[in-house]
């Protein structure tokens, strides 16, 4: 399969979305709303629940299932209040010593006049800034689209996993081709060069694990054992390891 086909597949309408993973893995999920500044963003669903016997905070970017649902979730493109809600619940998780689990599936942060004027850039920046120092484990899994800064804002984590058929990219192949050659036709060529598949990103050392698709139960088991391991690490070591993880990205 070509890399561009993976991108198209990750955008497919029939794949499981964040709610499927949350329902499949988390028991007694209770959704919590609002960022306490402006409003509640439908693109980000967040709350608490149990992963087996472990209380966790779970945050997901949700695309929606049908047209009406998709509109309610803004097609999985978050406004600043979505990122602020996520951060608020991460801080809550830190206070109550719960690990954080993030499901990432977004074409990108929403781009619009309101989103800009309410500080989209600042909201993403603040997430990276605060997550780098959050004194509780964070595990992020890209389950479909990992669209640029909007996906990164929930991925400053101890471990970043990706489904085998997901992608994570600095820019969409179409925009990239458009910037380079003023045409979106060569998006497939550019998709190869962007190194956006799970396999390539794993080889570059930018992600920690490639997960099998269509196995939500198995994924739940893996998440549980990983979070157990991370929870057993003392806070200082955890934060230091997270710092070094990102510090070493480069060449």
């Amino acid at each position, binding site marked *: 399969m070509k890399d561009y086909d993976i991108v198209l597949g990750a955008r497919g309408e029939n794949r499981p979305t964040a709610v499927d993973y949350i329902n499949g893995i988390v028991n007694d999920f209770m959704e919590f709303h609002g960022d306490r500044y402006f409003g509640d963003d439908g693109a980000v669903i967040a709350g608490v629940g149990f992963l087996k016997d472990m209380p966790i905070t779970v945050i997901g970017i949700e695309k929606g299932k049908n047209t009406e649902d998709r509109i309610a979730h803004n097609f999985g493109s978050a406004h600043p209040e979505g990122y602020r809600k996520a951060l608020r619940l991460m801080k809550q998780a830190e206070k109550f010593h719960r690990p954080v689990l993030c499901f990432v599936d977004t074409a990108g*942060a929403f*781009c*619009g*006049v309101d*989103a*800009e*004027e*309410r*500080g*989209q*850039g*600042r909201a*993403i*920046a*603040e997430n*990276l*800034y*605060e997550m*780098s*120092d959050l004194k509780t484990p964070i595990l992020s899994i890209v389950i479909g689209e990992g669209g*640029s*800064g909007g996906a*990164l*804002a929930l*991925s*400053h984590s101890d471990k970043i996993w990706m489904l085998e058929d997901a992608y*994570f*990219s*600095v*820019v969409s192949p179409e*925009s*990239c081709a458009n*910037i*380079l050659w003023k045409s979106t036709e060569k998006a497939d*060529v*550019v998709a190869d*060069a*962007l*190194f*956006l598949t799970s396999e390539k*990103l794993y080889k*570059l050392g*930018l992600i920690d694990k490639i997960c099998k698709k269509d196995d939500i139960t198995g994924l739940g088991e893996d998440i549980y054992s990983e979070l157990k391991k991370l929870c057993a690490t003392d806070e200082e070591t955890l934060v230091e390891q*997270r*710092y070094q993880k*990102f*510090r070493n*990205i*480069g*060449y």
Partner: protein
Amino acid sequence: MELRNLFLKANNELEYSGNRIRSRKVTCKKCQKEVSVAKIRKNNFVCPNCGHYFTVRARRRILMLTDKRSFVELCREYESKNVLGFPEYDSKLQAAKEKSRENEGVICGEATIGGHSCCIFAMDANFMMGSMGAIVGEKITNLFEYATEKSLPVIGITVSGGARMQEGMISLMQMSKVSAAVKRHSNNGNLYIALLTNPTTGGVNASFAMLGDITLAEPDARIGFAGPRVIEKTLNRALPKGFQKAERVLECGFIDAIVPRDQQKAYLEKILKIHNC
């Protein structure tokens, strides 16, 4: 490392300009009038007719803001590589080096401003639109770590189109890397002043540009996350007047103050003094 780099001070190169350039005239983009380069230089690179802000090279920018002969550059020799084998990237890097006369899109170092010691970085719009690849991220992270170790404030002058797509996810994750270094610097009680210049957008906006203790901007600078044309295309309508301009961003609550170019050095000096730096 070349020996001469060890002794290089910014103003050796900056204060030099041949007569050929001095007598040259350029047309101001805004008022369309011809202005002599010498006059623009004397006026802090602001058009004497209409007040338009010309782009200032990173090295010149540092010279304008720091004490004479105080700047000592760090990590000057760092250079980008085409690690992903991205098409046309090698030639673009070469062209950027020639255009900017720099090794990379950011210059970092230590200097004094009105006698106050600080670390300073300035991005260069002439180097692939100030885009952030691994080396830009590395140099800025290094600077913050150096400043943390020495308990020095950091002054950052940003100009950028965002993450450098030619380095794929390695570029994107520089946002995380730098933000984490800014956080450590802050946790140790150090001051970070960001001065946003035209344009500060994309991944740089969504990371260290928006993380200053004090955030300043130049008049009329474009400051935003998504590019205006992308937003226009998505929404399919014209954008409001002044959208993403520093004045509007200040109204929205994301900037502390807009500081004209001729006052920037004195302004920074005062902030450093108030913070006992």
